């Protein structure tokens, strides 16, 4: 997030201000793949109740194993497995496509129905043009980007 630079603090200062991290931050990697921590952006209870571990991707339903916008992934959330749909990632994609500040994901059931009922976070409108069943997720979204 760019909030830090907006607040006027440098990176070194922030390390002084905030507590020491217990984990290491890895280098930049292709968008979303196994063990990526993701942010669930719908209003489902499963995605929003706090847990001591962040939701992680454990499988990407894709030949390449790299998840971009519109890929189905399997998450480990609160000790259970749940399918999800990637709706935005930090990795820059094609020119003139939106790049998000967090790896966003929407929880999905086995039959493709979204688990939550509303999505406040903006979704990329190119989901509509992609091959796949995204209309249900677009129907519960508020904002398109």
């Amino acid at each position, binding site marked *: 997030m760019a909030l830090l630079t907006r607040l006027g603090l440098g990176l070194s200062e922030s390390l002084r201000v905030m507590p020491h991290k217990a984990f290491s931050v890895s280098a930049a990697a292709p968008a979303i793949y196994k063990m990526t921590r993701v942010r669930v952006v719908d209003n489902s209870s499963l995605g929003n109740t706090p847990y001591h571990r962040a939701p992680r991707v454990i499988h990407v339903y894709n030949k390449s194993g790299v998840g971009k916008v519109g890929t189905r992934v399997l998450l480990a959330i609160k000790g259970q497995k749940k399918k999800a749909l990637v709706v935005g990632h930090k990795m820059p994609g094609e020119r003139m496509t939106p790049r998000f500040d967090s790896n966003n994901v929407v929880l999905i059931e086995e*039959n*493709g*129905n979204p688990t939550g009922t509303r999505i406040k976070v903006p979704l990329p409108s190119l989901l509509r043009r992609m091959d796949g069943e995204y209309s249900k997720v677009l129907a519960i979204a508020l904002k398109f980007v």
Partner: protein
Amino acid sequence: MAMISYKCVTSCSRRILSGLLNLDAVRTNNIKCLHVNMKRPCVATLQSRYTCCALRHDQFHPVDYVRCSGKDRFYCDLRSIRDDTTAHNEDIAGSPAMSLSADPQNADLRRKIPQAFNIDVLVALLRQENAVDVCVIKVPKSLKYTDYFVVVSGSSRRHLIAMAEYAVKVYKALKTDADPHVIIEGKDAEDWMCIDFGHTVVHFMLPETREVYELEKLWTLRSFDEQLSSIPPETLPKDFIYDDEATDWRSGFGDLGGQERL
């Protein structure tokens, strides 16, 4: 003056729908009119072309149905506004089944002008399939999503599939080569199916599912929707790491655009 009759449409066979779409049945005068009170205010009235409220317990929905005069070509003349006094309770007696007009002039027109698969055709076929609670919402162009958002209920999964497949069938019959093919999304789901026709998006749901998601509320109220306001505002966790944009290549090194790095 001819208007599509609710009763007649439901008793029609599918074969006759093609006649309906060929506009001949519209022109014949042996169709009963159904008049629905149109003065009732609709929540979703953004343009009074074709709006209806999904009032769950109502048998009929206030629909801004337009009058199709004998001379008009198209099934629903979208330019003319219904005339209350003349069309109200007009009961044109005639044979219950719609018959294709034998008029040679109509036959010529039938061959020349293909009907486009627009919202009126869609709603007509949904009614023919006994769709429950048809709700058509005109979506503003600023959202850049679609023109019409239709939510329809069905009595069972089989009913939803039947409606969806029929809609696709009619679309394929009416589409030109330039129009893309359309798929039914969520065919393996039991309660929610959806079709994206480009200018319209139709959602077929069971009534229980419809109550859970409340799509009509979201698409009419947009940011004022209740479910959205009941989402608690997000707070970042205390150990959240902020990125330094100047060193983050993914953001293009922030406002400096990489000049600092060089």
